[in-house]
């Protein structure tokens, strides 16, 4: 196996340990925030804050841990489309049920 085929070499983006640790610290802080918010009596806002924080955390994992930021456009497009499909899927079903 000679090494003149390096399919990964031309597009490799090596993410430093520091950047990962920074993102991890952010995720931990957001976890603390979401637990703290849940302790307050926010009523109906609790689900909105909880889901907003969860979405930010999910975005951080997708973009940095899963390297979507550094991949080419096709990966990002695929991920956005599938996320959007899921969102439509949930929102439309929910509205159908809620206003029946």
């Amino acid at each position, binding site marked *: *196996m*000679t*090494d003149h*085929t*390096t*399919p*990964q*070499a031309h*597009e*490799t983006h*090596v*993410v*430093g*340990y520091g950047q*990962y*640790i920074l*993102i*991890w610290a952010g*995720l*931990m802080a957001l*976890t603390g925030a*979401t*637990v703290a918010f*849940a302790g307050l009596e926010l009523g109906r806002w*609790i*689900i909105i804050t*909880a*889901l907003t*924080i*969860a979405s930010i*955390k*999910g975005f951080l*994992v*997708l973009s*940095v*841990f*899963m*390297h979507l930021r550094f*991949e080419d456009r*096709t*990966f990002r497009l*695929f*991920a956005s489309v*599938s*996320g959007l499909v*899921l969102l439509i*899927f*949930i929102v439309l*079903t*929910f509205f159908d*049920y*809620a206003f029946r």
Partner: protein
Amino acid sequence: MTTTAIGVHTQGHVHRDDYGSKMGMWLFLFTELILFGGMFVIYAVYRFSHQLEFELGAKELDTLVGTINTMVLLTSSLTVAMSITAIQRGNKKLSMLLVGITIALALVFLVNKYFEWSHKFSVGLYPQAPELLSKPQGEILYFGLYFVMTGLHALHVIIGAIVLAVDMRFIQKNIITSTSYVKLEAGALYWHLVDIIWIFLFPLFYLVH
């Protein structure tokens, strides 16, 4: 590993498409998203129709255990992400160590989950338990969803840990190297997806009360 021209042509040119492999892994992850997505729809609808009972159900869960498990999974996502950097920089031992820590954290998560479920079982909160069936319909639905969704997630944790164990063996045997590490990337992507699903399960089951 021959250096003759013939050797290069017969065995030197191994076909490899890392881009395609990674794309395939992402496509698989999208199917996983739909699998869990269907359950999130069911959750949304039942929560809407049984709001008070869902809040009562959530009060039965231990927020502390849920928070600890969230932090365990987030940390395991960090270590598996760092293992890719390590192998890219040619640091084989560090990469194996980081994958090993990830697997250990997966086991910590499962042990916590085991104690959590055992406690629920001991107080009569499991599907078809007489005590659970005597509760209002909404709470029965809440615990039904709780066991199915966290159970399916735990199954993914087990599968992810096995995949990462195979990856660790591959690093050891130089199948995964600093120039060919897409197998480790695929395992890591799966692990991050397991983490993302938990990021949503945690507030929906533990915090919304």
